[in-house]
């Protein structure tokens, strides 16, 4: 609790005591002089609402007529004139209590938001001239070495030179399982070093590092306002003058028309003034969005603006790239099919050796599969290697010719390989004219890809589409496995844009199209979609720049989560708008008819604001 708020609460409590004493006294002494009673209540009033009166008077000087303080003052002073001393003080008391609650709630939500953004590193231990010095992260230059002890936050992006450890990436990815790093691995600022001491060579200065980019993004997210926020701003601009205008009319017209009864109508008009602040909405709507953005951030979903959070709830089409989004984008050996009399080991060994000089992902995956079986490549065994473009390779291993490649290569050797129906890339292997078998290498489907597709279906997406530049057979296979209803394959990058354009033209007016890609070579499509989502943002600047929403992990199911958060947030926003406006209009009507006291009016003002704020804070969870 802030000092200012504490002081305010103490003063209001003191005033409340004076108020109750005055009430008690006027009951115990029935014939009390009216002036004494007025003085007592005035004293209570000034203790409780002195600051409101002071602000109001100062604001008149600035020409701020529709200021909340001013309106409260008019309403309560008016009540004094009408002769309702106790009520005038009570209304001010109630208003102040409500304001304190409101400040408390706002402070609390400010704190939780600050906690969400608490990934900024305070300092870096830089090694200069053999000594470590603690400096601000901004002062460290690229190429310098920093030391990160267990428990410290990694201040800058870099590469591990010495040591191994596990990192807590929770604040960035929402992932609770620590990530292991060792010499040669890249580390990302904002993560917390858990176990070992790391010596890291800095690869980016602070302004360019991941943590600075994320903080910048989060801090600016709230300045891209949603339609709901624009609506509230507009509403607030007209609401107060209209209600104040109505109050004036209410005070003047009925008594003139019907004659007399000034007191009654002025009292009702004063109630109007109390309800004329739109605070409940002005605070709670942006707070809901902020909470939603923060809640998403906690699960490793960065949303670049309230407008995108709002748009996610209206999504009706989701278009996904295959490679890197639904599949891992890394190749691995899926199946070994040796010919008769050949061992799996032997087949893999020959293929791995033959391909050992190539850096192609397919070759790498062969070597990796061989290494994971505990074998190493002994380069001395390999003689000359010849790459046969469009066919494969021919390598001399232990003096024998090994051929590894597609079926065309096999036929060239006079062999008739099996017709393989498998999905993926097939590598046939032959040795000196003898067929050894084939290996299937395929991109792996992500473990949560099916969950994501099912989630989209459950979220009521009208269209779920998968795009890929890959072969039709592979694409159809992946789509069938995941249950994606619509597939477009063998597309060039330009085709993807055209296709997304066509889909956008086909959607309903209010509906939105989400495009999900890995952010590496689909920037034009990300930009064209209503909401561009990039996967695997951690460490990829391109993804962070190009997209509207960045998923920090590799999990496509997080997009479903983002839609859920969006729907929940929008639900809270709608509840607050309907509730606040509803209660205000209802109390205005009742007050005009003389059926609501000024008490009800205060509730419609601060009471509603507090309830709306408490409701808005749910969006954070």
């Amino acid at each position: 609790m802030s000092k200012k708020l504490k002081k305010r609460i103490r003063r209001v409590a003191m005033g409340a005591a004076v108020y109750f004493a005055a009430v008690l006294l006027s009951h115990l002494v029935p014939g009390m002089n009216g002036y004494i009673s007025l003085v007592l209540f005035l004293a209570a009033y000034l203790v409780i609402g002195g600051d409101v009166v002071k602000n109001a008077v100062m604001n008149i000087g600035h020409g701020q007529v529709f200021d909340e303080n001013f309106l409260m003052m008019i309403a309560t002073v008016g009540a004094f004139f009408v002769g309702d001393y106790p009520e005038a003080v009570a209304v001010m008391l109630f208003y102040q209590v409500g304001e304190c609650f409101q400040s408390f709630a706002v402070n609390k939500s400010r704190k939780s938001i600050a906690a969400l953004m608490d990934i900024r590193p305070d300092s870096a231990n830089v090694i200069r001239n053999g000594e470590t010095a603690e400096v601000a992260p901004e002062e460290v230059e690229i190429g310098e070495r920093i030391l990160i002890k267990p428990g410290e936050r990694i201040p800058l992006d870099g590469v591990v030179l010495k040591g191994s450890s596990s990192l807590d990436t929770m604040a960035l990815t929402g992932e609770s399982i620590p990530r292991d790093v060792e010499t040669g691995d890249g580390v990302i600022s904002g993560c917390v070093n858990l176990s070992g001491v790391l010596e890291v060579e800095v690869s980016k200065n602070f302004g360019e590092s991941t943590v600075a980019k994320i903080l910048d993004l989060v801090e600016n997210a709230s300045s891209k306002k949603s339609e709901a926020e624009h609506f509230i701003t507009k509403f607030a601009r007209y609401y107060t003058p209209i209600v104040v205008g109505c109050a004036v009319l209410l005070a003047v017209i009925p008594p003139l028309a019907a004659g007399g009864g000034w007191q009654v109508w002025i009292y009702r008009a004063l109630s109007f003034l109390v309800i004329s602040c739109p605070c409940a909405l002005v605070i709670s709507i942006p707070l809901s969005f902020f909470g939603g953005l923060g809640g998403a951030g906690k699960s490793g979903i960065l949303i670049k603006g309230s407008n995108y959070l709002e748009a996610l709830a209206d999504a009706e089409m989701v278009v996904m790239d295959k490679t890197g989004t639904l599949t891992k984008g890394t190749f691995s050996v899926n199946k070994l099919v040796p010919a008769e009399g050949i061992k799996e080991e032997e087949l893999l060994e020959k293929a791995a050796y033959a391909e050992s000089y190539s850096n192609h992902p397919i070759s790498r995956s062969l070597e990796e599969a061989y290494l994971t079986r505990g074998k190493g490549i002994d380069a001395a065994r390999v003689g000359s290697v010849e790459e046969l473009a469009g066919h494969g390779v021919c390598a001399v291993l232990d003096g024998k010719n090994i051929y590894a490649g597609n079926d065309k290569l096999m036929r060239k050797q006079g062999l008739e390989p099996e017709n393989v129906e498998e999905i993926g890339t097939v590598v046939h292997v032959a040795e000196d004219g003898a067929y050894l078998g084939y290996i299937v290498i395929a991109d792996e489907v992500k473990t949560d890809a099916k969950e994501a597709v099912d989630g989209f279906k459950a979220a009521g997406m009208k269209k779920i589409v998968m795009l890929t530049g890959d072969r039709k057979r592979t694409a159809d296979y992946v789509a069938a496995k995941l249950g994606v209803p619509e597939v477009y394959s063998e597309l060039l990058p330009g085709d993807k844009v055209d296709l997304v354009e066509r889909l956008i033209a086909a959607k309903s007016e209010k509906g939105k199209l989400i495009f999900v890609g890995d952010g590496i070579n689909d920037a034009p499509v990300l930009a064209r979609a209503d909401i561009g989502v990039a996967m695997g943002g951690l460490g990829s600047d391109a993804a962070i720049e190009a997209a509207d929403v960045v998923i920090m992990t590799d999990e496509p199911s997080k997009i479903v989560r983002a839609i859920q958060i969006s729907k929940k947030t929008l639900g809270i926003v709608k509840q607050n708008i309907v509730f606040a406006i509803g209660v205000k209009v209802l109390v205005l009507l009742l007050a005009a008819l003389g059926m609501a006291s000024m008490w009800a009016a205060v509730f419609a003002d601060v009471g509603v604001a507090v309830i709306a704020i408490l409701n808005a804070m749910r969006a954070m969870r």
Partner: protein
Amino acid sequence: MRKTYILEDLDCAHCAGEIEAAVGKLAGVTSSTVTFLTQKLVVEVEDAKADKITKEIKKVVKKFEPDVEVVEK
């Protein structure tokens, strides 16, 4: 150029909106955003006016919220 200010002790959300609108109307300011929750004011201002704008912003803020302290970041 872009300037960021912290509005310390900004308590009134309604005033935040009014400050945003009033700062937006200052000569040389092309955009103005107040975020009530982070107590931040971000303005885009023409380079030529950048030096004087802080003073003018302080004046505007004082008018709406005398208690708020404007700190340039």
